[in-house]
């Protein structure tokens, strides 16, 4: 029987993978994917806690729906920016974005 522990474990694992992905990626697109992982880990948490801890209200699920919507908007904007910088630098590698420094 899947209990709350499993869900929390799953979400923590997802969160760590996403975090690891964010910190080590060279490629901007892979970065976006890792961000999605983190957001979905949070969603899992929200839904699981709603189901197991506060079944009365649907607050957790409603919020996770919102999160999905907003996450989509965020990645759209992210992609726009990455495309616009790609058009200028012909590369999406994060190391190339180093004109602004010191």
């Amino acid at each position, binding site marked *: 029987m899947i209990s709350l522990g499993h869900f929390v474990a799953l979400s923590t694992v997802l969160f760590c993978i996403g*975090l690891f992905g*964010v*910190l080590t990626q060279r490629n901007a697109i892979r970065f976006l994917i890792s961000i999605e992982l983190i957001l979905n880990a949070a969603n899992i948490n929200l839904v699981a806690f709603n189901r197991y801890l506060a079944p009365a209200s649907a607050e957790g699920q409603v919020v996770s729906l919102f999160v999905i919507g907003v996450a989509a908007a965020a990645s759209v904007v992210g992609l726009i920016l990455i495309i616009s910088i790609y058009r200028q630098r012909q590369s999406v590698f*994060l*190391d190339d*974005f*180093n*004109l602004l*420094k*010191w």
Partner: protein
Amino acid sequence: MVNIAHFIPLFPFAAFWLNIIFGRRLGVASAYVAVGASAISAVLAWLVFQGLLSGGGSYTLTPWLTVNGHPITLGIIVDSLTVMMLLVVTVVGTLIQIYSIGYMGGDPRFSRYFAYISLFMSSMLGLVLVDNLFLLYICWEGVGLCSCLLVAFWYEKPAAAAAGIKAFITTRVGDTGLFLGILLLMSVGHSLRFSDMGVINAPEPLMALAALLIFMGAVGKSAQFPLHVWLPDAMEGPTAVSALIHAATMVAAGVYLVARCYPLFTAHPLALQTVAVIGAISAVMAASIACFANDIKKVLAYSTISQLGLMMLGLGAGGYTGGTFHLMTHAFFKALLFLGAGSVIHAVHTQDIRAMGGLFNKMKVTSLTFIIGALALAGVAPLSGFWSKDEILTAVWHHGNFGLFIAAVTTSFLTAFYMTRLILLAFFGEYRGAHKAHESPAVMTLPLVILAFFALFLGLIGSPWAHHAFQRFIAPAEGEVALDIGMAVASSVIALAGILTAFLLRGKFLEYKPGACPLIENKYYFDEIYDALFVRPFHWLAAAVARFDRERVDGVVNGISRCVQEIAQASRSLQTGLVENYLVAQAGGVFVLIVVLTLVGKLCHIF
């Protein structure tokens, strides 16, 4: 009639400002302004003298400053010592100023000279009039300033400039002693007035120290033993200046100070003894140097130091009247000698007595007056020098200290010796100089004659024929004074012996090879010692301090700013511009925060 005394210094002071501001326009008239002012002062001094005889006394004018709760008031002291000094300063001053009209004839800064002389007169007169030590110190420094300005009057000559500064600094060293004495007296005795100088009940050693410190000021000003080096160099100034300041008045201020604070010194025998010893040393040492000096003004300068030493010896040996009497007579005949020397230099344009000779028949008046002055100085019987020097010898004899008496005797002997040597070399034999010597104009010779008159007859007022009028006038409390015939004879014998030996050795004076007696010829190497001990270390220390300041202290300041800049430079390079670094930093920050907080939570076991 006495309380007009405080106007005496004001006239020369006004003359000073007149000459300074309108000097250029007044031209020669500035001399008349100065002479007029000091003449008026002389008349006022005479009136005050009459007032004193008819029972006048000291009086105070206004409270001036309160220090440590005790008021210092501007007071005027009118007693025999002051009046004697007033008369001496004004009379000699006026005569010398008349003389310097001729002597300073063509000088471009004629009016500036008379301005300084008037300022000197006013501060000297102020010095003898004020009734407390603090105001005396003010006039004391004023006098020192004027001596520096006048010595360095021809400041184009580097030697004159250096001599002026040397004079001011050396006297200032002494004055600092006086300054500390004043502070000590104020902190212990709470009063600086001369009248209650003797009655201060304070711990013995402190009062002795105060007396010694005050004496240190006198030593500086009267060019006594340790601080005498400035007087011979001060001869760089015009001879009239040397006559007025470095012979008659200013150098006597030291003796005046000791005489004025005499109750303080007599209350502490140790202080009195030091005065005597210092006087003796200066007298003998200066006299010995004078015997070998070849510059006419240097001879007279060293003779002044030795005569002042004699006066200090007299005072130190308890002979208050002797010291003051010699002070008065010495002022006149030493001024005469200097003015005579001035007239000689004016004629032959050289100061080296070996290049003179045979002036007697060329400059009749100057030579005659000069010889009278010399005899008075040597202490030959009827002249003024004999009476006052005899007083001192009797005082030293009664004092009982045999060493001091020997010093006094040798000084008298040497004085007679070098004065005769001077006269023989300068006025007799054949003329060795290049210039055609001619007698000085009347304006210069007239003061010589008047001074010669004083040199001849001034002594008599202290002689038994005038039943010791001067002694009774100067120290009424000391009771009857008798002339010690034996001592009078002895001093005459000593004087004649001195003259005789000089007469016998006259042949050897000219072919005397310099270097035969290096110690005395080089003036006991005082200048070199002081230079090595004080001047050079002072410069070295100043340079060291400036370098320390520039490198060390500034170094620290610049160091701090440089290291702050370095830290800033380092922290700036944290911004690498690479996104990964930023993300790692952020995630790292979160991780560190979590770890720290859980630890902190565990520590204060909140969880």
